[in-house]
């Protein structure tokens, strides 16, 4: 019985087939998203134009200047931005769930997003002339998101003795509190109300390449840090005490991962506003369908999170075209029922 197993003894790893399928889904989603919009672009010329953009390739796509501008200045940056935001929020959610050993932990429940939102709102209202691309907004968002998580952890620890339910309850309380302050600040500053409000609901509408550049570095950096901790996150799944007896500096790892996840959240929130549900749905869908090891969950969260966000944005800008839905509405609208169905079909329920 044992002999056939022996040569194959290996840790769980992400099958190239699954990863390939996910990447294919992402590319398809991106392509559809490039083609569909208020102005329809036809696939042939668009593909040619995209190929023309590759270094060393010169193809005359036949796209006119207007279509070319729509492609390069409007659709593509928006798609790339959506991909980065989706990947960041998904990986951050997976990371929070891992370090707090709580299936409900995500940037929104823990107060990270609310903290980032409040801090960014304060910056916008204090100086209405500030552009979303200015470095102060993401910086404030980062400090705010760390403060939000820190408060949730602190309150959760003093109240619930470090239990995971205590943490989530504290996170809900902190998030509500910070959101209330944010609402108060908004109402007192009617001049920026509309701007802040659109931003809160989440949007990728003002996307341009500058925002892509702004979010890319912190997002890639924090995803890389979390990826370095993939094995540690698996060890932490047996709890802090057992992880310590296995040789993990649980506290150090926790701090590194929480800071990285909060930075990813802040980067996403700063450019896209508050887009909920991604950080909780994407990692769990992966756990329930493919596997729970972080070697699987993290890379797939990047790909699936990106695809999910591009798809949600596509719906957000087409369903009520020419108007746009807030993307957060779409993510919750599709994500929640899908997630509920998956939970029902899986007897294990929400597990990590």
């Amino acid at each position: 019985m044992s002999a056939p197993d022996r040569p194959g003894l290996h840790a769980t790893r992400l099958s190239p087939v699954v990863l390939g399928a996910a990447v294919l889904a992402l590319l398809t989603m991106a392509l559809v998203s490039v083609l569909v919009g208020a102005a329809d672009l036809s696939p042939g010329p668009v593909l040619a134009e995209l190929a023309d953009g590759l270094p060393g390739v010169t193809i005359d796509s036949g796209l006119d200047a207007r279509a070319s501008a729509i492609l390069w200045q409007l659709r593509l940056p928006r798609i790339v931005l959506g991909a980065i935001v989706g990947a960041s929020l998904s990986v951050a959610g997976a990371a929070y769930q891992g370090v707090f050993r709580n299936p409900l932990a995500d940037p929104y429940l823990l107060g990270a997003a609310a903290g980032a939102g409040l801090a960014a709102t304060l910056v916008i209202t204090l100086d209405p002339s500030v552009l979303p691309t200015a470095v102060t907004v993401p910086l404030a968002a980062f400090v705010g998101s760390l403060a939000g998580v820190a408060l949730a952890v602190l309150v959760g620890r003093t109240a619930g003795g470090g239990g995971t339910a205590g943490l989530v309850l504290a996170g809900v309380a902190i998030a509500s509190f910070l959101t209330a302050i944010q609402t108060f600040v908004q109402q007192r500053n009617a001049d920026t109300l509309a701007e802040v409000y659109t931003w809160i609901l989440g949007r990728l509408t003002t996307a341009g390449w500058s925002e892509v550049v702004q979010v890319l570095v912190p997002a890639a950096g924090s995803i890389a840090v979390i990826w370095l901790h993939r094995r540690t996150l698996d060890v932490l799944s047996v709890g802090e005490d057992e992880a310590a007896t296995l040789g993990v500096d649980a506290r150090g790892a926790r701090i590194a991962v929480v800071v990285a996840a909060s930075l990813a959240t802040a980067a996403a929130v700063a450019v896209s506003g508050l887009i909920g549900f991604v950080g909780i749905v994407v990692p769990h869908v992966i756990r329930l369908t493919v596997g729970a090891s972080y070697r699987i969950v993290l890379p797939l969260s990047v790909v699936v999170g990106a695809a999910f966000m591009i798809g949600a944005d596509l719906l957000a800008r087409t369903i009520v075209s020419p108007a746009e839905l807030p993307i957060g509405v779409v993510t919750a609208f599709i994500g929640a029922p899908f997630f509920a169905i998956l939970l029902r079909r899986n007897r294990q329920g929400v597990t990590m």
Partner: protein
Amino acid sequence: MSAEVDAHPPATRQDDAHHEARGEAQSDTLAQRSWSRDGASTSPAVEVVGAGVDYGGGPVLVDFSLAVAAGEWVALLGPNGAGKSTALGVLSGLVRHDGDLRLLGDDPRPWKPRRWATTVALVPQRPIIPPGLTVTDYVLLGRTAHIPTFGVESAADLAAVDHAFTRLDLHTFARRPVLALSGGELQRVVLARALVQEARILLLDEPTSALDIGHGQHVLELIDDLRRERGLTIVAAMHDLTLASQYADRVVLLDHGRAIGAGTPVEVLTAARVAHHYDASVRVVPDGSGGIVVVPMRPRGDPAAPGHHDDPPA
């Protein structure tokens, strides 16, 4: 096979130098104290002196001292809440305590988690089972201290796991989810995780409490074999007094956080002591080969009072 309950337990299989140190039988004095004095020439694998633990609600471990020679098996006994798990927490570095601790002759206080993990392995009483991990993934967690912080397992780590699988007969389960295992299988898997840490000291918290009589026996036999093969030093919190007396070289009886008796099982486990400290009615019967069997007896006289016992407190 391992019921070494005579007053002069043979020395460590690996190191006969301990023989002299362990030649003396101690009864009511705390064995470890005179033992550590006599054994000063070779430092014990585990040495605790005057450890005290207070989680904030009163002391749970008071002036606890223990010395365990390399290759020795010491069982911590005592009723629920006596401080057995806390004592193991002290030895595994998980519990903050007063007093001194030495492991393999060194003061572990400045140790990093890795050094701890390659010195002491703990088999928890109720391990947290992460859903979604296979048996191989789970046992590989035991190699963490041998794997670079940001790295992944090497061929050597997989070989260690493979070896443990062979030893504990786990190859069949390699790809199964840990959650799908039965109690006996799980105990072996957790043991495998501890073994691949390649630590010299193995701590076991109630290793058979979740197992039926046969599986419990198998696991203890396995642990005893591994101890001999690898020269492991074993400290185990045990609730089954008969099994403890059959497998441990020495036992330490704890009650209310204090060690109230230490020595060979025959010395420590008298019916009067068990009756007093466990509030139980038992008979201690010689097993015919120098060991003992502790048999629970329904209290005579008033069957409705389970706490009633005939032996007056010692």
